[in-house]
């Protein structure tokens, strides 16, 4: 809430969480552009005759009149749907991945913390998820996760080695989620430094190497994946990215890379939606 308290205000947001409250009420968490996460109660929303019930379902872009509560729980009224994302509700695969997108954005959001760019990213991604052809959904996920990291100020370093600060030459390298960028291969390091002995800390041949308990396993970063990620960070426009002809293996490698970084930054394991996606049988 803004420093000046208001009794009533209008809010726009996407419903990212919902749970039942009492006899017929529902608590919804709205992801808003200017107020961050906003917890609201929709009174009587579970009754069949409720005027708000249909609007406050998950993954709906809504606008509402909000009565400010004394605590951080406000009350919704006069709810209207801006976009119901009906395309998501008719396809389990699209619904699962859309839930993952919402969960990722929610994890990087806080109450009272405005982030209009992050909101715009989720709104646009949900729209794209409705219409994008299913084989391209993994690429959409890679675009979303890369753009999400950039939007929250965690853009991966894809041009310089995060350990030596040398420019990354073309080739296959490694990616360190904990250090937030690429690690140069030792043979490339020799060329870059013009020295005979590679820096021993600059290369971990075994991603499972846990000699240092603080070290998060590094992830392989093939050349084409690096190129793809660089292109996405340069061109954050999905309409141009979706027409790229990319190998599925490069997208898969990119998702391992962004997924590892998201998990490290959020200090959490596999997401809620990812778990459901695994059981649904949608590999994305």
């Amino acid at each position, binding site marked *: 809430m803004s420093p000046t308290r208001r009794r009533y205000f209008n809010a726009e947001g996407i419903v990212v969480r919902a749970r039942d409250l009492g006899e017929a009420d529902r608590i919804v968490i709205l992801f808003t552009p200017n107020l961050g996460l906003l917890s609201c109660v929709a009174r009587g929303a579970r009754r069949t005759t409720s005027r708000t019930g249909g609007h406050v379902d998950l993954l709906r872009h809504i606008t509402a009149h909000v009565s400010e509560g004394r605590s951080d729980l406000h009350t919704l009224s006069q709810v209207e749907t801006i976009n119901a994302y009906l395309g998501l509700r008719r*396809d389990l695969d699209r619904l699962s991945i859309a839930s993952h997108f919402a969960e990722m954005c929610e994890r990087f959001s806080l109450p009272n913390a405005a982030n209009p760019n992050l909101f715009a990213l989720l709104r646009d991604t949900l729209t794209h998820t409705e219409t994008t052809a299913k084989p391209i959904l993994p690429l959409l996920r890679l675009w979303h996760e890369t753009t999400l990291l950039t939007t929250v100020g965690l853009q991966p370093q894809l041009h310089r080695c995060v350990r030596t600060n040398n420019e990354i030459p073309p080739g296959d390298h490694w990616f360190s989620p904990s250090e937030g960028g690429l690690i140069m291969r030792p043979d490339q390091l020799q060329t870059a430094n013009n020295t005979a002995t590679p820096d021993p800390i600059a290369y971990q041949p075994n991603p499972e190497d846990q000699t240092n308990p603080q070290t998060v396993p590094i992830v392989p970063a093939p050349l084409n994946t690096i190129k793809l990620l660089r292109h996405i960070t340069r061109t954050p426009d999905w309409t141009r990215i979706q027409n790229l002809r990319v190998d599925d293996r490069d997208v898969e490698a990119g998702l391992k890379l962004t997924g590892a970084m998201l998990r490290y930054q959020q200090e959490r394991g596999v997401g809620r939606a990812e778990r459901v996606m695994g059981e649904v049988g949608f590999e994305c």
Partner: protein
Amino acid sequence: MAAFRPDPPRPVSPVAPRTDAPRGVAAPVARVIEAFRRLPGIGPKSAQRLAYHLVRMPEAEAAELSEAITGVKQRIKLCETCADITEAITCHICTDPNRDRSTICVVEEPLDVTAFERTRAYTGLYHVLHGAISPTSGIAASDLKIKELLQRLQDDSADTSDQTVTEVIVATNTNLDGEATAMYLQRAITPAGIKVTRLARGLPSGTDIEYADDATLAHSLESRAEIG
């Protein structure tokens, strides 16, 4: 047969008076207040009102309430066929020879069975999932009684002596989680050659169209019927 467990499970610690219990309240009353506060929809004020009502209640009534609460935990089981709450190994609906055994109505909660039974319009069998798939809450198919439903259908198709199931009616809620569950069931059951249907969706009786949301209106149009 599994004993009935409330969902979701919540950690239960011995009921002890909270430090924020009202001052001057006797320890046994504070303990009851804290116990009531754990119930869904009960806030601190309601918990206090209920606790003091118990204090004023005749001892026989209090004993009856206590016995009822203990009994519900000790005697209740899940029906080994449909997973509804029952006292016996199999519930009275599953054992009723007059029920139509060609249809199974899949619902989220035991209370939904009660709602359908009130209508007297459905004479088939049920299957209770005890929840719904929820990508946003991380509830997956393996957390529900979906595996038991698929096994039931498989056993039914192998059993030639009985009337086989020809239709599964998915009666999950019409919210996002209910839709996700319905789509999952459709995907899992259809390959077995069993018809999967969904309850009709549309405008509820007595509602104003101007307040209907897009999804409800769209479903109403899709499910429109000829007048007369």
